[in-house]
């Protein structure tokens, strides 16, 4: 029989070794699956690598795909660090997109590029307020935030659907093809976020914004009084109260911060890529949920979220490019699931030691 036992001392270098090993383990498990579906794993992996990294324009696609995950990954990491399990990145992302698109549609024409900061602020505030609902319920009524934030996702999705499919809201395109097929109204081209070029790679503005925010969040958690409070509250709520920290207020703040990060992701979706509020597309992408995987694999380190988002974005990008043609359907999603599975498993193995226990000893 096997038993788990807590490890007393965990070496430092495991911090990065465990995630790397997890990804490798996931690839091995994935290879087994690919073989059993009658394909050659080496060939499949080579093609994934090609369409995510090597091919012309591949890296640009990867960066674009990584951008929303960067925000939702940061959102999850910011909350999970305090043991506040915000599963609502999905909903906060959508609310952010609604706010960002709303501002761009209303002021885009008149303000030009000046509307971009306004989009960011509006999306951040909307996402923060949306998340703060679950935060306040947790802080004052001890409601489980996993459930409330998840429920709020469905509400957000339904609001999105309502705006485009069931109403004549100002988000909806009411002329041209919009009369036949319900769809969002495109924002003014002057409100679209700029791309910058580094060598052959195109970087969306949102990506740089995400990188800067990742660093800011890292500083916030590592160097400020707020970060110190978060750390103590996560470790021992009674010590935090004793030391005069306001645990409830901090829970709501962390939730709002997390929601704001996801919300900015929603604005980037409008400004960087889609240029239109598209609830159906967002629902299919599931950025909020993938963000949780990103945060877990980054071990909740905001700066580590950047490379991990690129990894997951690369997989998404490759999956999209290879779709159809003799490529195992759903493989990319499966690989991402395996990576999460192995990351969580690796986490357990890092903290606990598995021991074989003799039957005779147990029987006593």
């Amino acid at each position, binding site marked *: 029989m096997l*038993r788990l*036992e807590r490890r*007393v*001392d965990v070496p430092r270098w495991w911090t990065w070794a465990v995630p790397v090993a997890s990804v490798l383990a996931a690839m091995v498990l994935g290879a087994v699956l690919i073989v059993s579906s009658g394909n050659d794993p080496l060939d499949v992996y080579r093609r994934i690598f090609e369409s995510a990294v090597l091919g012309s324009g591949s890296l640009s696609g990867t960066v674009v795909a990584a951008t929303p995950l960067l925000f939702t990954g940061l959102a999850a990491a910011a909350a999970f660090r305090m043991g506040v399990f915000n599963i609502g990145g999905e909903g906060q992302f959508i609310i952010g997109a609604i706010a960002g698109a709303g501002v761009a549609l209303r002021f885009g024409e008149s303000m030009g590029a000046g509307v971009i900061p306004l989009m960011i602020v509006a999306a951040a505030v909307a996402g923060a307020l949306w998340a703060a609902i679950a935060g306040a319920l947790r802080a004052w009524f001890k409601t489980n935030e996993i459930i409330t934030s998840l429920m709020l996702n469905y509400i957000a999705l339904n609001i999105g659907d309502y705006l485009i499919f069931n109403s004549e809201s100002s988000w909806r395109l009411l002329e041209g093809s919009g009369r036949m097929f319900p769809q969002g109204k495109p924002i003014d081209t002057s409100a679209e976020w700029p791309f910058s070029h580094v060598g052959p790679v195109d970087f969306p503005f949102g990506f740089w914004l995400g990188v800067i925010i990742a660093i800011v969040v890292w500083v916030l958690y590592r*160097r*400020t*009084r*707020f*970060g*110190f409070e978060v*750390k*103590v509250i996560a*470790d*021992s709520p*009674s*010590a*935090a*109260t*004793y*030391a*005069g*920290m*306001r645990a409830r207020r901090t829970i709501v703040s962390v939730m709002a911060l997390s929601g704001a990060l996801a919300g900015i992701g929603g604005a980037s979706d409008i400004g960087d890529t889609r240029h239109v509020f598209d609830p159906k597309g967002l629902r299919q992408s599931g950025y909020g949920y993938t963000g949780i995987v990103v945060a877990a694999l980054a071990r909740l380190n905001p700066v580590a979220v950047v490379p991990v988002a690129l990894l997951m974005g690369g997989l998404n990008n490759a999956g999209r490019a290879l779709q159809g043609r003799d490529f195992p359907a759903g493989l990319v999603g499966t690989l991402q699931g395996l990576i999460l599975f192995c990351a969580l498993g690796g986490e357990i193995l890092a903290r606990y030691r598995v*021991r074989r*226990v003799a039957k005779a*000893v*147990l029987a*006593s």
Partner: protein
Amino acid sequence: MTTSLDMATADATVPAVAMSGITKRFPGVIANHDVDFEVAVGEVHALLGENGAGKSTLSNVLTGLYHPDGGEIRLAGEVVRIGSPREALARGIGMVHQHFRLVPTFTVAENVMLGHTGRFNRRAAEDRVAEIGEEHGLPVDPSAKIWQLSVGQQQRVEILKALERDARVLILDEPTAVLTPQEAEALFVTLRRMAAGGRSVIFISHKLDEVMAVSDRVTVLRDGTDVGVVEVATTSARDLARLMVGRDVVFNADDGQERASVDADRIVLRVRDLCAADNRGRPALNGVDLDLAAGEIVAVVGVSGNGQRELAEAICGTRRRTGGTVEVDGQPTSGRDPREMIAKGVSHVPEDRLHTGLSPSASIEENLVLKSYRRPPISAGPFVRRRAVRRNAETLIERFGVKTTGPTVSTRLLSGGNVQKVLLAREFSAAPKVLVAASPTRGLDVGAIETVRGLLLDASRSGTAVLLITEELDEALALADRVAVIYEGRIVGVVDRASADLTEIGLLMGGGRPPAEEL
């Protein structure tokens, strides 16, 4: 069940436990260095040493929690490798930790039977627990829930748990630290009885008189090595102290020290009619009145569970007051917010050090600024100044003699006594107006106790009013200007140190009627 230890009863000359050459290293420290340790069948064997000497580490090696880097363990002559506490228990070694590991919402019987596989039969379990309790003189109601029990009773449950698995060797890590003197007395009787019945008891304590009273032999550890094994019959407390510290120890150093001059006109803590409820919502404080002048030390003594904890918490703002007022230096306080009390200059050494007073996973340096991180010089605007945090830690570690490999070590990894020093260092260094200290010397070695008592006197000399909550009358009488007796949530008598009479205080503690003029 057949375990290797059953054979021991047959041959009493083979030691029940023989550890030889045990070495255990942690990053940066050698907690045990080539330690030999032997316990005979049927003896109570004390393990003595200063804070951080390696006592807990050695017992954790024996119970399989730590794996030694070197050395050998024999149980009844047979070399064994102990992989986990569970394996240790299966081999007949039980441990009662300083922090109990019981499930508060479970009954006594459920807790004792926890870890058994198979079906749980309530009736059978309760009968069995009652039977073992009776057999060993450890009466406890098997159907009571753990949270309803006093700390002393909870400890009995822990012992029963080990006995139920038929532990032949029982390790108790500072068991008396949480007990009242009466409860400790009862525990000693139990331990002697278990030894007489052929079991072996390893008893870890800092209190020399207890060690002298209960044990047959003593092994002394100093800085991770064993410096001697002595028979209690042929030694004295003074010799043990010398062996432990490595030099002569002066007992009762404080008696000679100059006392603070109490500024009776400046009342810095005025408590009026204070009421509060305990964790279960029942009234625990029923109208407490107290005045503390600047530079005064007032000890609150009483049998534990008479509202001491609630008194400290209600004053310091961590427990809601249900009535009454607390004034600090003439200013009223709302009592709704610990931060308010901290800002008004009230320091608090809580009973539960590691989880209330400290953030266990945070580093030592972080815990040392747990309250001061909000203000300069530790913070600058929204930022915490890491340089200032480090400097603060280096000063305090040095000044309070915290034994550690560095300021960034996680506080949880320190030895019990050093955890406490971190907490005391922070609270004393805040230069408080009022210091509320719950049993500040509990769990400390003799040297550290002297240091802490000296610090309390220092604090009072610099004008701090000290409210010392303690169960040790000796300590109260050695330090306090006045002794207040608490009983069922009320102060039933206040006695001046000069006119203190032990029997009278004892009577008051037990709820006896005080003479009229003392009230």
